[in-house]
């Protein structure tokens, strides 16, 4: 796992690397990983994210991300970006500043949004802002 631990939040080819990871691999990462399919159903949810949010994986997997898990991202800053990218078949790879309310405490985070045509999963990656 030593190679995976070095999978950096800002690494350029991160999308391909994440798709190649097993779920166990994702659990080794030190940032939150939410992977979902083209219908926005959550398919991957790593331990780091689960612990930050206080939600176990089985409450989240197979749920609709923007309506059933994290409605706080169902807006033009996040959900709309994925929809727009899907609509014109473009690649989305952007890091934005955001505020999560993890266990009802406001926490400033950086979100990396990843989607690209032909990729298996879309990702929202979550890292605490310093």
């Amino acid at each position: 796992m030593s190679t995976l631990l070095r999978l950096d939040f800002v690494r350029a080819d991160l999308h391909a690397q994440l798709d190649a990871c097993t779920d166990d691999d994702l659990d080794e990462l030190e940032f939150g990983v939410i992977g979902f399919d083209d219908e926005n159903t959550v398919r991957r949810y790593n331990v780091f994210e689960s612990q930050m949010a206080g939600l176990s994986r089985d409450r989240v997997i197979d749920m609709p991300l923007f309506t059933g898990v994290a409605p706080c991202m169902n807006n033009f800053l996040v959900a709309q970006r994925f929809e727009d990218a899907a609509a014109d078949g473009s690649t989305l790879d952007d890091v934005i500043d955001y505020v999560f309310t993890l266990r009802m405490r406001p926490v400033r985070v950086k979100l990396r949004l990843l989607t690209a045509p032909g990729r298996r999963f879309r990702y929202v990656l979550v890292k605490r802002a310093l």
Partner: protein
Amino acid sequence: MPPEAADVGAEYEALLQFLYLAPVGLAQTTLEGEIVMINPLSAQLLMPLSQQGFSNLFAALEDVAPDLRHQAAKFGAASGMICDGVRIQLGPGTVTKPDAQTLSLTLLKLDSKRLMAVLSDVTEHVKRERLLRQSEAWLNAIMTGVRDYALISLDSQGRIDSWNESIGRITGHDSSAVGEPYSIFYPGDGITPHRLMDRLREADDSGWSLDDGWRQRANGSRFWGSALLSPLRLLQDDTGPAYCLIIRDITDKLEASETIRRATSCDHLTGIANRRMLFEAAEIELARWRRAPRPLTLLMLDADHFKTINDRFGHPAGDAVLCSLAAALTSTFRECDIVARVGGEEFAVLLPSTSVQGALAVATRLLSVVAGQTLEIEGHRIQYTVSGGVASMEADVTGFDALMKRADRALYAAKSAGRNRVQSFG
């Protein structure tokens, strides 16, 4: 793990998820507004307001609800409702989100240490209410309490087409009014020639245009009137009068409608228009401008060294300064101008059919009125000044927020040039 503990853990998770998914914003704060707990929707609603992240509810809402902190601080009871469903107007509409966003805030004092806030986005609700108000006003205008009214026919330019008894009864004008524009029924500063035409166009577009407000009789006395304007020519080759204008004297209903208007559209400290009213009016003026461009200017004003006044003489003195400034604004500007308080010590005036030069001239007059007066408050003699920035609506201004930004830049320029002055953008 004993079975009970496992249950508690699962229930805790279920509760967390319940709050994560709640379609209403909830936050718990200290009495000073420091956020202790907050759910995702609250955070999402507050996010556009606080670039720096947020730790304090009052600080996050400072620009859009400047009185909130004060209101909470002066709430004397040990517990209870500080405010219930108060409407907070966020920014003006933008290109991507054309409707000005409105939040509803309920603030409850739980005990001597905790406040609970409930926030929700009521933008759509407000929009529906506005439509409802309009149709209600329309129904009122045509169906109820019609004791007497003036029925006036107008030509295509809004000039009075013919005289009849009802015009004499309600407005006191005689047949010499024929050929005059219908603005003779308004107080001198109540309507501009552009606005006169705007109302005709609006009646063309939607079938009617309704306008409640002060009207003036031939002898100069005023009454609160409801004016319903509707187009008469349904076919292009129709001849005869182009519009029908019905004016009713509803002065006896003024109190009731004023109470409602004040509750929803006025800043509760100064009594002038609030942000919501300004943004609504601006939306209408910008639509008129797009249909028929004409001079339209925005003046942003800011009381100089206001924080110092507050710190030195206390909050009541600061409030008195704001009220005095609001009064000076109301007496200086025309009735058709929208004078509003948009933030703590920040005010705005939207001037229809007014050039930058015209706006600068009135603003300069205001500045000298303000600088020349001395307020006596709780034994202190207070003098203050204001700075202003003017920007005019142009084709490259994308919306009201962009116009405000320009006027704000001019205001900053006036501040940095030494205050007590007004500058124009560009």
